């Protein structure tokens, strides 16, 4: 049914349609509305039977999820940012144990400085943890990916993270097509665990493994993600058959055919990029767009096929690895191994900085003219950065960096200055 609602509520309703048996919740912006929505559905009796646990931390949330999943219950939780970092030990553990937990990550920056707005630093920091990571472009896709995530997780016995941009998607009201319970039940069979804490067949789960088999256990996790690389498009195709719309898959190309320059991105910025590409195409600039929907497993072959014909590739990232630059860029370069392509990394939108079409257009024109630097921070205010560097050179006790920069920007100055008050 077509309806207008907040992204978080759409996800909450979609998750409820998947009949989770245990949900554990700890609040962190911008994930809160999702677990609030689910809490209301459980408390009101719409989602039953389901245990909704208000836990004392994200570490506990993932730990409760580990226990309930190992006991054979379909299990869901959601987090973001600092919360994802706080649960990291258990995030790796859930993957190592092969427990098909589904978790939404409402993507948000990581402090310090503390910042509640969107970028991809949180989930990118967990790219090596063994979870499947799917990125949603829109609220409709976020909704649809959750239904696919339970199917994929349980088939593969592997946890799945559905990443959706905090605020930009979670708090945006959009039109969504909410499936019926019957459709979801057709698509998603009941959970049949591969391993379970069962009295009839008592097993010990999570015991120690030494050097004699640890490599093989870890390799199997990789091999299973490679198998998931095949199942993700198949599940997306089955989803399209059942629900009558496309969602998920490994990658999605937009006007990539014959494009000389292709920009690669993940998540909601893809929408802005589509419009940018359209505008540039109308001006006769040969550009295309590739959206990566499955970041882990990383679709090396699909990315290679999509980008092989391009002269240059611009990877637009909402995260970066301090000390080198791009995160996704490295993976894209691996996909293009042996192919001569001009590669650019553009870091954009950190901590919720708006990614404007005008900036994207300017940046892509520079790329097409091969005037873009190998690593560019979109709309970076070099002036305040340089002033801080000068300040640090002049004074030993230069003070908190973030405060200095904000004073230079003027926000704080405007609020505290007599002129501002007058």
């Amino acid at each position, binding site marked *: 049914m077509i309806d207008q609602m907040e992204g978080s509520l759409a996800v909450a309703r979609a998750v409820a349609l998947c009949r989770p048996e245990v949900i554990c919740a700890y609040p962190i912006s911008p994930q809160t509305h999702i677990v609030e929505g689910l809490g209301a559905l459980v408390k009101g009796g719409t989602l039953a039977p389901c245990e909704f646990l208000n836990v004392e931390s994200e570490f506990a949330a993932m730990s409760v999820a*580990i226990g309930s999943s190992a*006991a054979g219950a379909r299990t869901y939780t959601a987090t973001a940012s600092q919360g994802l970092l706080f649960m990291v030990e258990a995030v790796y553990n859930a993957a190592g144990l092969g427990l098909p937990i589904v978790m939404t990550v409402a993507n948000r920056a990581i402090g310090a400085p503390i910042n509640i707005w969107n970028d991809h630093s949180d989930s990118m920091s967990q790219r090596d943890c063994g979870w499947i990571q799917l990125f949603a472009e829109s609220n409709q896709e976020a909704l649809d990916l959750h239904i696919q995530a339970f199917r994929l997780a349980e088939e593969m016995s592997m946890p799945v993270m559905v990443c959706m941009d905090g605020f930009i998607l979670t708090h945006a009201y959009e039109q969504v097509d909410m499936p019926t319970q019957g459709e979801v039940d057709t698509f998603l069979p009941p959970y049949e665990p591969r391993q379970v804490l069962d009295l009839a067949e008592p097993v*010990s789960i999570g015991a120690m493994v030494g050097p004699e088999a640890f490599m093989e256990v870890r390799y199997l996790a990789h091999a299973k993600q490679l198998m998931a690389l095949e199942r993700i498009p198949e599940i997306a195709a089955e989803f399209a058959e059942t629900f009558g719309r496309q969602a998920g898959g490994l990658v999605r190309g937009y006007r990539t055919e014959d494009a000389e320059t292709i920009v690669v991105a993940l998540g909601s910025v893809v929408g802005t990029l589509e419009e940018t590409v359209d505008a540039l195409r109308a001006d006769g600039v040969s550009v295309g767009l590739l959206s990566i929907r499955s970041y882990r497993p990383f679709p090396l072959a699909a990315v290679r096929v999509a980008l092989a014909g391009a002269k240059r590739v611009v990877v637009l990232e909402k995260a970066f690895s301090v000390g080198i630059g791009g995160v996704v860029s490295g993976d894209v370069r691996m996909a293009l191994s042996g192919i001569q392509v001009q590669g650019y990394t553009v870091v954009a939108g950190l901590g919720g900085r708006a990614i404007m079409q005008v900036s994207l257009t300017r940046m892509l024109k520079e790329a097409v003219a091969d005037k873009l630097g190998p690593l560019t921070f979109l709309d970076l205010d070099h002036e305040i950065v340089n002033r801080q560097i000068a300040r640090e050179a002049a004074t030993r006790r230069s003070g908190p960096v973030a405060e200095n920069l904000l004073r230079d920007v003027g926000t704080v100055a405007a609020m505290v200055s007599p002129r501002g008050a007058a």
Partner: protein
Amino acid sequence: MTQEVKFYQTGTFTVGNRLLDEGQRTVQASVARSNALTSGHRACQGCGEALGARFAVDAAMRATQGQLIAANATGCLEVFSTPYPETSWQLPWLHSLFGNAAAVGSGIAAALKVKAIKAGKAQSEVRVIAQGGDGGTTDIGFGCLSGMFERNDDVLYICYDNEGYMNTGVQRSSATPPGARTATTVPLGPNPGEEFGRGKNVPLIAVAHGIPYVATATVADLHDLEAKVEKAMSLRGARYLQIFVPCPLGWGAASCDTIRLARLARETGLFPVFEAEHGEIASVTKIRHPAKVEEYLRLQKRFAHLFGAHGRPDIIARIQGIADKNIKRFGLIAEEVAP
């Protein structure tokens, strides 16, 4: 059970038990016992934790007619019982992390509740225990433990308290007693060993949560331990049991002194044995043969620096002070009744 109980597994006092009346014998002396933690594990000789775990888990198995699932924190108990492909556990058992056993227990209990409702039952007949050492309980697992208590999740948490991080090589935990030598509280300087005025009384903190049942026990009184586990399993909601389990390796004690040390810890008043229900102390085990702390401390090399030519009688007196305070606070010695 997948393994038969062997005669040598039926306890040190098997032969002695046979001299007792049927009703007084420990169930552990019988080959018909449930045997949740079976032989062949790698615990040290005289390990108090292995003994405590076997009696506690077996008692819980009996109380639930074998319908029991265990979550286990990282630590000695986890390591000595389960190097894959071997396992000593004869019940469904899950080890996740060091600091999350209580939360994992909560998760299992939540899953079981939903399964029970789906099967048309009001509550799950399958029950959950979560267990760990004192480090995994009073330190790194404390947040998850408090959360499980506060939500009153249907889990019995058992802490095997050997007063330190034994698995990692005998370091100090918040359960390490004052004066004790560990690898991180060396017996040097004016205040040798663990400092006074530190540490955490988790049984009383559990009582403060107002949960249905809190108890302490020692491996010196296994009937009492079994009775407390049975009591705990007869109740629903969050329950906590802290079992005093001497560690011969970590304490520098003789393997044959495990039971003796556990008894002395109780009889000196250093480890008060009590029960509490819904936030109120319900019973205390009185001291039958009062002992001075010196007798207890002398048996352990971790306190060796307090004795001899360069000994510290002042520190021994302070430790005696702790015991005396416990005796007064919990009423551990019965008031003399005038003849």
